């Protein structure tokens, strides 16, 4: 294809990406470098029901507005927000690393910092759920591929259900089912003969529940892609493998898997990115006390209370993007090398 035709085709989507993806990211990056102006506060008499009148601090909105008019973006703070306690916490990390009582102490103190706490769960979720969901999806695909055509439709539909259900709704359903009054929770209690067992009560069990939910929710995507891939496996190769005496496992190991490898890379890429942004299950499972993620931190900065911390949310967003880039870099580097080799 000549370059001109290529650009004519790609231009509209390129433009849309620039407008709706690249520019907002730039604006978020700029935002993350600024913090609010110092508020001008005054002491005024406040009268309200129950309290009577007291002298309380108030923000002088007019004076603050003047500051804001002069510099609408806020006060330049450089990377201050990135380095403060609620993000990378460099000062706290320094203190922990220079003065500590062994590895366990370091780990627990780092885990006590909100950003690293969120990062710990986010990374665990990403690296546990991605391979397991891909494996489960692949197994379902193999299974579905082997059943008689008559049953395929309904089985595919049921296998896709976890993906069709809205993530938040799916999370809520599983959450209710796993509560001690729900079918899963009650069954577990009677199986393990422990009437106080609750999946929501401890950090470990909450993490396990979230991870299981993640695998359940993400498996259908891998299944769909792998199932489509299975249809393209060359029959000749399979047949010759059979003639050579390869059993089913050997055919999968030496014919199917190598054939699906490029697809697996693609699925892994998409799933890594998706899982790194894990958010809905935490809200759905009311798991904030035990598990937070980077996306949840951003949400909490913007929607947690009456105040909105735009700088803080922007900084976490940029750190998330950096995280995604780091996660994907091995794959990106490989693709780049292959491209250059050609």
């Amino acid at each position, binding site marked *: 294809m000549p370059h001109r035709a290529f650009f004519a085709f790609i231009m509209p989507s390129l433009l849309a990406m620039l407008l709706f993806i690249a520019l907002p990211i730039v604006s978020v990056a700029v935002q993350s470098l600024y*913090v609010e102006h110092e508020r001008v506060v005054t002491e*005024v*008499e406040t009268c309200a*029901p*129950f*309290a009577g009148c007291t002298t*309380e601090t108030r*923000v002088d909105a007019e004076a603050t507005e003047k500051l804001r008019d002069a510099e609408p973006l806020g006060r330049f703070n450089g990377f201050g927000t990135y380095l403060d306690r609620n993000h990378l916490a460099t000062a706290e990390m320094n203190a922990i690393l220079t003065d500590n009582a062994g590895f366990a102490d370091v780990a627990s103190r780092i885990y006590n910092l909100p950003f690293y706490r969120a990062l710990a769960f986010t990374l665990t979720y990403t690296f546990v759920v991605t391979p397991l969901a891909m494996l489960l999806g692949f197994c379902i695909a193999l299974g579905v591929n082997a059943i008689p055509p008559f049953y395929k439709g309904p089985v595919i539909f049921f296998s896709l259900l976890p993906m069709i259900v809205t993530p938040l709704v799916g999370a809520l359903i599983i959450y209710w089912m796993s509560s001690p009054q729900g079918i899963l929770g009650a069954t577990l209690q009677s199986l393990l003969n422990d009437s106080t067992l609750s999946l929501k009560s401890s950090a470990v069990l909450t993490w396990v529940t979230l991870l299981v939910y993640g695998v359940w929710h993400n498996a259908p995507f891998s299944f769909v892609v792998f199932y489509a891939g299975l249809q393209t496996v060359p029959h000749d190769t399979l047949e010759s493998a059979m003639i050579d005496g390869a059993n089913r496992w050997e055919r999968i190991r030496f014919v199917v898997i190598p054939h699906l490898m490029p697809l697996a890379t693609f699925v892994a890429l998409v799933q890594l990115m998706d899982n790194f942004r894990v958010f809905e299950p935490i809200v759905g499972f009311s798991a904030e006390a035990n598990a937070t993620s980077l996306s949840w931190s951003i949400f909490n900065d913007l929607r947690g209370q*009456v105040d909105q911390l735009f700088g*803080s949310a922007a900084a976490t967003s940029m750190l998330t993007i950096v995280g995604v880039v780091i996660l994907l870099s091995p794959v990106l580097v490989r693709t780049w090398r292959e491209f250059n080799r050609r």
Partner: protein
Amino acid sequence: MKKTAFFASAATIMLSGLVAVQAARAECGIEKGTVRILSNDFEALRLVVSEAEKCASATVKVSKNQTSEHKNLQVPALKINPAQYTVAVIANNSIVPLLNEGLLRPLDDLVAKYGQDLQPTQLIKLDGKVMAIAFMGNSQHLFFRKDILEKAGLQQPKSYEDVLAAAKAIKEKGLMQYPLAASNKAGWDLAAEFVNMYLGYGGELFAAGSAAPAINNEKGLATLKTMKAMTEYMNPDYMTYNADEIVKGYAAGKTAIINAWGSLAGGVIDPVKTPAEIADNTVLGAAPTVGGGSIPAAALWWDGFSIAKNISDEDAEASFRAMVHGIRPEVGQKHPALATWLTKGYQPGPNAVGVLATANGGAKPYPMLPYMGLLHSALGSELAEYMQGRESAEEALKDVEASYSAAAKEGGFLK
């Protein structure tokens, strides 16, 4: 003959409809303007807003957006000119961002002109200017099961020490496995529990006259200790229950003593909405005192309305009059079970006993300080680990202060 009768009745209906419209207009007395209301979404507010909507006429447009997301909409919606909403229905905490940004209009002249029915206690005054009109009060207070306590041989608990003793007795007698519940869900609810208890201990949240936090002290530690002691008698899932869910659990007969919102009391003591043996045995009381203190350990809240600054005077007048119509004394008098009204002539119903007892006991109001929201946020996320026994109380309070300080620096409140 029949036809004439039909026409006559149709004419009567139409006439009476017309008269009703005329009456409504006469009642509100608004000539023209638009009223756009942004409000939270619960039963009492639905009533107030629907009453205000009755002021709609050919020349007066009334629209509403009732959503629990109102806190997230209000600042951007009122910042633009003209503002998207003319009325913001707010509470102690949600008025603060609007005040911080200076988006509300002083109401003195409107109160003087149209506020004859308002009580002086309803006016929220800042620096001598009326900035909001409160119309109902709310607080968390005691709900308990008389029958269960009687079976355990106990009286109404007056303090949290009593509550703990009662819980112990109920559990030991095998009456209930988990007699207590609290809204300890990490986030807003957990922080509200801390603020309640800490105010009950007589603590100050901030250093006097500054935004510096002051919770890392004896009272803060005692607060956390009491909160933790209660969890021993709670369902192990206690960190996942918010204020609504503990009431549901209570109404299902799973708990005996809870400290829940007064605005939910009406449903709990109503035998239609709650099983009769629970509804009839429920007693509402003041929030307990704590640690030998004399005031109930609960923050007092009010709900009210404010008028946006960035709108025309005509719309402001129409909005104010529509809202004053929505909270006119008859509304509170006719619906005493919906809320604890602050309006004139309100006769408290059985549902309001708890809130009134808490207020009369001298409970403190939830602070309206500009940086309170940030502290609330930090409390909500940093106390969760302590509540589950993963860190010490000292460390938890230190974490709250550090997290708050970082946010307050970003918000421009601390240097």
